[in-house]
């Protein structure tokens, strides 16, 4: 995975529908393995294809139109990415080449998944999203701006998320640098809340036994 390529310029493919859910971004039946690859083709399958099995394209869907095919930016509606927590939705977008989604608001789990995968979620007012949808825009992460023609929109992003995206940092590696702090917190917590800590049963394959019927 790579850091967010700032500044990013491209046409913002318009998918201006509220409550776009992750079942639509990547339907469960398109999630064929436990891996993170091979998902781009199934991205938006219900809307992108008139026949998903045959992969017959729906010409009305933005990403099937010449100017938006392979778009790196999507302009979406409110509560974008709601529904299932499946990170596969972001893996599919990233594999397709989407590096930023601009929307009025995002569902929280999807928003977190975007950051962990270096896809930039940009929150802008509805009027701004509607105005820039379909046009060429430039997103500058450092300056926190989206430029559209002679309009410049400022957006906010948490400082930490910004740094992660800008530098392509792996959150787990970063947190592991604080392991000593976590260890000392845990030993103090053990004394306070002993009931939180379970015994390792050591079996760990199956909980109790077989034949539950």
């Amino acid at each position, binding site marked *: 995975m790579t850091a967010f390529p700032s500044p990013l310029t491209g046409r913002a493919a318009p998918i201006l529908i509220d409550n776009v859910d992750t079942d639509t971004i990547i339907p469960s039946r398109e999630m064929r393995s*436990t891996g993170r690859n091979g998902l781009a083709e199934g991205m938006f399958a219900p809307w992108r294809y008139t026949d998903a099995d045959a992969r017959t394209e729906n010409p009305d869907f933005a990403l099937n139109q010449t100017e938006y095919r392979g778009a790196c930016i999507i302009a979406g509606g409110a*509560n974008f990415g709601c529904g299932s*927590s*499946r990170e596969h939705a972001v893996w599919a977008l990233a594999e397709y080449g989407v590096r930023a989604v601009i929307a009025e608001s995002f569902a929280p789990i999807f928003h977190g998944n975007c950051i962990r995968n270096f896809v930039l979620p940009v929150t802008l007012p509805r009027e701004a999203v509607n105005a820039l949808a379909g046009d060429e825009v430039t997103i500058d992460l450092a300056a926190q701006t989206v430029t559209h023609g002679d309009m410049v929109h400022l957006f906010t992003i948490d400082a930490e998320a910004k740094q992660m995206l800008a530098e392509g940092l792996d959150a787990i590696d970063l*947190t592991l640098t604080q392991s000593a*702090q976590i260890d000392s917190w845990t030993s103090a917590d053990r004394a306070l809340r002993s009931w939180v800590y379970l*015994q390792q049963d050591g079996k760990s394959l*199956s909980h109790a036994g077989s034949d539950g019927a």
Partner: protein
Amino acid sequence: MSQTLFEKIWDTHEVGQTPGGASLIAVDRVFLHERTGASALKRMAEMGRTVRDPSRVFAVMDHIVDTRPGRGDGTLMKGGEGFITETRAACRAARITLFDVNDRDQGIVHVISPEQGIVLPGLTLVAPDSHTCTQGAFGALAWGIGSSEAEHAMVTGTLRMERPRTMRVRFTGALKAGVSAKDMILTLIARYGAGGGAGHVVEFAGEAVRALDMEARMTLCNMVTEFSAMTGLIAPDAVTFEYLKGRPYAPAAFEDPYWASLRSDNEAMFDREIEIDASTVAPMVSWGTSPEHTIAVDGRIPQGPQRAHDYIGLSAGSRLAGTPIDAAFLGSCTNSRISDLRRAARILKDKRIAPSIRKALVVPGSLHVKRQAEAEGLDAIFAAAGFEWRMSGCSLCFYAGGEGFPEGSRTVSSTNRNFEGRQGPGIRTHIASPETVAASALAGAIADPRDYVRVPKEVAA
């Protein structure tokens, strides 16, 4: 200083700050399932990382397991078996406890975690599953995350988080007969929108919430993800502790003063407050393709996004009640517990579903629920009424490419999502309470459960 329940749990778990200014929050329990957990386990292994404390990580096979009797690892979904065998091998390698396909305690993650006493008041619990919020009913901070975050939680025992805002939703007064927790949460979403809870942790309070049993409280918290909230929670009380006593992973006693402190202080301030009079809550049914497209069963469909009307095949101004249905589904982490099945069975007893219904399923939320229902003879009531009785799992709550409803079905379903294609390509879903599903299956059309529970319907003003 006065604090909300959320703030107390957050502060207890704050290990420190990250250099970027986020909080490092300790995670007490991680729960995985074979659909999204498998991806986290795989990545962890590929990166050569290990689980920090395997005794506090659990996994279950629930999402794509077959629910037909006599099941094994095979699934109707193409390639599904791979998710099951890979998850099993990965759990063994990581030494984490697995509730396997035919384990006697198997079931839907959010049903078995409480049954086992894995979720407890005051804990933090995460799972790569959006309905983890269900478990907030116990006064735990329980929320859904992605697979990368699940790996982060397993490996480091923490998550990096920005502090969410707080919202309190009070349900005052009392519910009317034929109305249940599902109708309460659907009312909240219908009134305030599918994005209404964005950025917030929602605490449910008020007499009508206190009056709910634990299973109904879980139903209420289950759908806060459909409200776009980070999670929901309910302060624990005697009902909570009574439910948990004697559960396999629960402590022997709840006498520590810590338990008594798990409530919002009287003076605590919330960023936002909503109040709903529970007596105004009617049986709710969704008409469209977002959970916010929901109205009282006896209401008229409003004008929504044209796309939703087109998909569902119902126009503004028409009545929802009386709309013919082809299928009925009782199950899911929202409404598949024993009390849900009892209420549905009470309506179905000695009756037969309409001949026009082409598929009707009851999928208990766990094998415990299944055995309990069988001991009470509920399975026989469902079978006599024309419902298929299944093994536990998520089943047709979502379509994974295997079993489906008959093509073009309109189904009434006790699940939580009515998205386009959620239950299969072209399948039109109406979400509702188990009572409403049962009543509608008998009628062969969307029906008002109050006509079946023999209570006087409120006279319209």
